């Protein structure tokens, strides 16, 4: 697999604040790469640098072995976290403008826009101004603006935030579809469950640092089968009595329990059996959320 995006020892400061600190990762061709981390971890800054919107203070970013440039910009489809379009401009004119800025000729742009508008059942909105559209509709238009120039690389910043379930599902389908076509997709999110569903590789960001990166399955495997999923009927108070565990996901009839030190899963089971009726007991790999929390804690114990 060849490396498409190569982020090498990149740092970026804003005034005294270090937004990105000596970060390196590589995105391989044809994969879905997830950039994870809480808000303010430096994901957006990194994506902006990959898009050549801002420049790193030090380090470099290469796309297919060449430094980012107006040429690499044309190969990327970028969906920023803060969505925006010209409110007073008609849908079709707007898409034409943005596609042509990405280097399409006007006839290429026209064909591509027609195709995507059809794909999203949006042909009838052509002459409407963005201000007239609903939020869900303008999200679709925004997405067309990102993909119309048929880029080989997609960079999505928090693509699922603010999407309704239908659009969210549709976006997931398109992402998988584009991957099937051999496109490379890099996206950032702070919602772990999406990453688990679609990512091949991940990079965890915390406070401007890349604290963990690699193949998602490998990473999960390396953390071992040290998590217990417990579903039960009864008083969940017994959970508080457990020692040397961390309870990540907890409700009145469910708990995701991470075993710390040498705690045995059997101990949990026997404690639970004495107090509640057990419906499900399963030993699994830790969730990404859990991996993330442990990694950040290791990296910087105070930030937990």
């Amino acid at each position, binding site marked *: 697999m060849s*490396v498409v995006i*190569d982020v*090498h020892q990149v740092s970026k400061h804003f*005034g005294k604040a270090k937004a990105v600190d000596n970060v390196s990762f590589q995105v391989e061709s044809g994969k879905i790469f997830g950039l994870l981390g809480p808000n303010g971890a430096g994901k957006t800054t990194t994506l*902006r640098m990959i*898009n*050549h*919107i*801002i*420049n*790193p*203070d*030090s*380090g*470099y970013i*290469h796309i297919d*072995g060449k*430094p*980012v*440039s*107006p040429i690499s*910009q*044309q190969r*990327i489809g*970028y969906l*920023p976290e*803060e*969505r*925006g*379009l*010209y*409110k*007073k*401009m008609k849908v079709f004119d707007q898409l034409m*403008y*943005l596609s*042509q*800025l*990405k*280097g399409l000729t006007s006839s290429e742009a026209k064909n591509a826009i027609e195709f995507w508008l059809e794909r999203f059942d949006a042909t009838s909105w052509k002459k409407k101004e963005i201000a007239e559209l609903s939020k869900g509709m303008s999200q679709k238009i925004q997405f067309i*603006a990102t993909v119309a120039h048929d880029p080989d690389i997609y960079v999505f910043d928090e693509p699922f935030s603010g999407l309704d379930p239908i659009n969210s599902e549709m976006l997931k389908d398109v992402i998988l579809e584009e991957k099937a076509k051999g496109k490379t997709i890099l996206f950032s999110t702070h919602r772990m469950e999406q990453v688990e569903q679609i990512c091949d590789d991940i990079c965890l960001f915390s406070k401007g640092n890349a604290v963990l990166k690699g193949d998602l399955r490998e990473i999960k495997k390396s953390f071992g089968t040290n998590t217990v999923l417990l579903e039960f009927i009864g008083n969940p108070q017994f959970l508080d009595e457990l020692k040397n565990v961390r309870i990540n996901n907890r409700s009145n009839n469910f708990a995701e329990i991470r075993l710390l030190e040498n705690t045995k899963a059997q101990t949990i089971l026997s404690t639970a059996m004495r107090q509640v009726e057990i419906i499900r007991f399963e030993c699994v790999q830790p969730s990404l959320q859990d991996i993330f929390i442990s990694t950040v804690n290791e990296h910087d114990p105070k930030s937990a």
Partner: protein
Amino acid sequence: MIQNRPKQHKEFITLSKTVETNYPNALHDPIIMNFAKIWLITKREYLTRVQTKSFLLSTFLTPLFIIGLMGLVIYVTVSENEAPKQVVVLDETLRISNKLVEIDPVRYIPSDESPEVIREEVLEGQWDGYILIESDFLSENSTATFVHNGAGGISFYESLRSDLRDVTREIRLQDNDVPQDIISIFEERPSLENKRINEEGIEEDSNAFVSSIAGILIGVFIFIGLFGYGAILMRSVIEEKTSRIVEIITSSVKPIELMLGKLVGVCLVALTQFGLWIATYAGITVLAAPVAQFFITQRMGSVSTDMVNPGMESTSVDLSFLDQFSINPVFLMYFFVFFILGFLMYSSIFAAIGAAVDSEQDSQQFMTPVMLPILIGYMLNFRIAEVPDSTFATIVSLFPLTSPINMMTRLLVSNVPFWEVLLSIVLLIASVAGMMLLSAKIYRTGILMYGKKPSFKEIFKWIRQS
């Protein structure tokens, strides 16, 4: 391949160090710009702006306003010639009225009626007023009285006074047996013709008053143009920033390309509007003379039949005052040069301000220092129209922040040496380049900064950092 990369990187850094330190991507950020993309931005900006209601309204209402204004000027000029005023002369000396009638048989109507009767008639509107000259007027040097219904105005009153003075002087001179040649000395009216000399040394008729008014007006016009369109540009930048579309655009073009495209777009909107206005204006001035002549002849025709006075028909109206409205093409060219340069200068500052703030309210703090120089230039303009060749006028018309306004005024009011105009343009071009470079630095940082309003200190930091 992978081993190779760091080496490439090292070479790359070395190369780019010479371009710009601490800025690894500098090599791929050359000053070379993508003009096809700038053109796309310009086109969008232009088409969006010319389709707005405010553009259409101001473009088409202003000529109407100009037409109205010129119509008013013509009307005032014409109406003075139109309905001749009639004044009854109640002359107790019996010597003055016939001489007044000699001067103007239409205006002066001698009468023997009592002042009370005439007063009634004036109130009824039959006459415009009456002059009462008492019997001792000539001997005692007393005052005659002009009683009127309020119509006429100062120039009419002045002409009555001047007629009465002439007649009185003539009678007195005659009474004292003053020789004829001395009387003719008194009757002489030396005139002063007002001519302005131009570059080629050819004298032209000029009206100093009109040109200084025009000089002030052109200053006002440029001032409003620079600020009106500067504000439009600033609003457009703020709109892109607050709607967040700027992030999508800067993932396709460089911030400086975006800024330039917008500047040129708005500038073309301004030029379109001015072009339309000038075309309308030129059309009006060409048409004005025949139209005015047409109305005058019509009025004269109706007046002369009413008045039983065939002498009036030969009266033609002097329309040469309309020449003052014509536009000198050289001047027009200067106007565009100074406006475009002034626009680029101020609008690049406006673009930078728009990029630095999140809303129009926040822009106030930065607007004040920007407005200061041009406001000073604007206010000085009234003084410059009076003394266009003073040292002070020369300095402000060379200083790039005020020259777009002040040089234009000087050009209209006085004959500015060509080298001064040239120097002013060169200085302006140099400052425009510098200002745009500076503004571009603020712009590229500002458009991606959301949230808090930056201080001046932070803006200086942006300039130093980029």
